């Protein structure tokens, strides 16, 4: 019995520490003048032991005939390892896990009825993309081997291996793929690591039959120890930073980055009601500010939840309907089927904004046993309705006044926003107060943001250096304690 336990735990250890996977985030090689920028992509990664399922989606803008994509993969994929899935999978997962806005309603202290809470909103997602017919030139001449060639629904797939990056680059160019100049230096390390290149383009004829002009995501399945996303290739044709949303599914717990910090987004903060109409923009500002504060090289956690079929509460409150089992299966969760009602599915949503300067290495991940739930949500609280004609109401109004002040401060702290509506918002119920707040009586302090509102973008604000100073002080004290006595001895007159 004991032996069994130890063997199981060793297996667990290797499943939680050992593995990494490879794939995605190629660059888009478009012909002619089609836009080369890919500023947002979405990936689903499912990891079970060393089995990986990766689904890629991106917002390619341009003529789909011109789309092509190169993705380094660690193994030679067989035809049934590649699948085309519906775009809808991403929409469902995105809607479900996106940062959310919650609304609560205060109860009027003068009447007795139950408060209700409601949930609104979700962030919007991004669409995908792909092609152009290639005539295969003599591959051998370039040191390139065409390992396999498949036609999968509307996509034409080639799996290449190469000896030299120059050869691969020349071959791609000779076959009408437009390659960013800086791609070569990135291709070389992948070739040396024995990676294969998964090259995809769209078959325009079939495209017409299947979709109405948008790209459906591609799903790759393979077994490999490596658990990573090769983002470096994607940087070759994009200037500045790119955003990527990673939806991870595991059997045990959270997905975590092992070579960059994984940081939680600020959550459960109360914000003013007027933010509701522009919540999308507001969250963007929060993300930008958090990204800057964490040094632009962290990975952000937006959602982590045990979404197994057997769990009752999958979010609190939910944005919409939880994904159906079929959605998880479409996303590549291979261990879920009708026979297996007890399957555990842990859903992690990570948001990365990467740029060449701050992300020199590909993202590496690990599965942790961390099964603590997390969601990124912001709270709106509606004031009570009705007349405030009892004594208790005065306390309530005073609390409301203070709460709204805090909400306005919070809005500034989170997003760096200063809004002219703030003053009006904070003072909305002052008219009903018998005892006016001090600052209104004196009319000295502006009610708006605590910070005085001078800096209204707030972007680029660094973390407070205070903790660092404390650390430095500690260090200094240690050295002082260690050497001061010695010096004193020297200084003392004999």
């Amino acid at each position, binding site marked *: 019995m004991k032996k069994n*336990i*130890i063997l*199981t*735990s*060793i297996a*667990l*250890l290797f499943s*939680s*520490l*050992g*593995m*990494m996977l490879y794939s995605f985030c190629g660059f888009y090689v478009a012909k002619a003048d089609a836009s080369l920028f890919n500023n947002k992509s979405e990936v689903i990664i499912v990891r079970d032991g060393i089995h990986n399922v990766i689904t890629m989606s991106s917002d390619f803008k341009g003529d789909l005939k011109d789309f092509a994509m190169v993705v380094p993969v660690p193994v030679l994929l067989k035809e049934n390892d590649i699948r085309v899935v519906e775009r809808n999978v991403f929409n469902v997962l995105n809607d479900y896990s996106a940062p959310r806005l919650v609304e609560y309603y205060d109860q009027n202290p003068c009447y007795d009825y139950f408060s209700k809470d409601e949930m609104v909103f979700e962030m919007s997602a991004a669409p995908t993309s792909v092609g152009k017919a290639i005539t295969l030139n003599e591959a051998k001449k370039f040191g390139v081997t065409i390992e396999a060639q498949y036609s999968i629904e509307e996509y034409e797939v080639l799996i290449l291996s190469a000896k030299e990056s120059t050869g691969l680059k020349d071959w791609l160019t000779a076959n009408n793929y437009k390659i960013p100049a800086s791609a070569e*230096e990135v291709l*070389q*390390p992948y070739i*040396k*690591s024995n990676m294969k290149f998964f090259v995809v383009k769209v078959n325009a004829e079939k495209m017409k039959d299947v979709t109405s002009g948008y790209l459906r995501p591609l799903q790759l399945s393979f077994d490999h*120890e*490596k*658990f990573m996303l090769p983002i470096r290739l994607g940087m070759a044709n994009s200037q500045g930073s790119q955003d990527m949303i990673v939806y991870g599914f595991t059997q045990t*717990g959270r997905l*975590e*980055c*092992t*070579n*960059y*910090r*994984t*940081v*939680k987004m600020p959550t459960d903060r109360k914000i003013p009601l007027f933010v509701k109409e522009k919540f999308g923009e507001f969250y963007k500002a929060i993300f930008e500010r958090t990204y800057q504060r964490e*040094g632009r*090289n*962290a990975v952000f956690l937006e959602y982590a939840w045990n979404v197994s079929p057997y769990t009752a509460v999958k979010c609190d409150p939910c944005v919409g309907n939880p994904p159906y089992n079929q959605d998880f299966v479409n996303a590549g969760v291979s261990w879920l089927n009708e026979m297996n009602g007890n399957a555990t599915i842990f859903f992690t949503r990570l948001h990365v904004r990467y740029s060449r300067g701050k992300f*020199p*290495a590909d993202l*590496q991940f*690990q599965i*942790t*046993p*961390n*099964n*603590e739930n997390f969601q990124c949500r912001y709270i709106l609280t509606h004031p009570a309705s009705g007349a405030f004609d009892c004594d208790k109401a005065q306390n309530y109004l005073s609390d409301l006044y203070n709460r709204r002040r805090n909400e306005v401060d919070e809005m500034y702290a989170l997003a760096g926003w200063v809004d002219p509506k703030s003053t009006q918002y904070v003072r909305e119920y002052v008219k009903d107060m018998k005892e006016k707040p001090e600052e209104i009586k004196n009319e000295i302090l502006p009610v708006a943001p605590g910070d005085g509102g001078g800096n209204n973008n707030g972007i680029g604000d660094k*973390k407070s250096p205070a*903790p*660092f100073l*404390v*650390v430095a002080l*500690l*260090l200094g004290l*240690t*050295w002082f*304690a*260690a*050497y*001061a*006595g*010695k010096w*004193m*001895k020297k200084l*003392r007159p004999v």
Partner: protein
Amino acid sequence: MALISHLDSRLQKTTEWFRSDGRHFQIISQLTLLCYGIFYLSWDSDYFNFVAAFSGCLIVQLLAIRFAGLPSHSIKSALITSLGLCLLLKTNSPILFFLAGWFAIGQKILLKISGKHLWNPANFGIVLVILISGDAWISPGQWGSGALLVLLIGALGLSVLSRIKRMETGLVFIAVLFALEYCRTILYLGWDWDLLFHKMSSGSLWLFTLFMITDPMTNPNGKWARIIWAGAVACLSFYLSNFHFINGAPFWALFFATPVNIILDYLVKRPAFQWKTADQK
């Protein structure tokens, strides 16, 4: 005047006491790093876990002092181990922190080979809890990477190593690892330098180099034995991370390389390390 001279002599005594034992430097350094992690890197830390780690380690150590006749100053080592657990281990439950403390200190007391314990206590506790429970893990990415961070950990680490005269273990480890990574990342694979710097400036790696592999109580006793051993740990760690994609490879490499010490100590006979304390001086 009398007050000043009184204060002066007090200060003198305190600093002498502080400088007399390398472990004081280590406690302060690890405490500083823990504060940095919690307050600056805003770790997701549960203070209850920390309490569990400290109580686990201290209870066993106190029992050992009472019943196994260990010197009372060994409580400092238990503090270092608890801080090590707080810095590295992550679990779903404080009980596992408590257990890790028991394993760590228990191993130190029970698994003695010719009067010397085998594994670094924190390393042993962490690895065992991960292996047995499957509900604990380490987060190699939690420190991030960066020059400033390396400087901070480096300064603290060197202040400790210079006291206990175990500099060479850490230096050889990091130098061999750097050389191997340079050969693979830059010479063979052809990545840019910034990727190598990113890899080598990982906070977890430096913490390991300066505070774990250099533990004088579990290093081989002979200087050359230590140098060869540190090199071997670096090679194993390089192999595990580059060819088997193991996260936190140095911790595993150290765990598996530690038993080799028995052979090294048998071959190279030198007196084992003893902590010097103020009263021994």
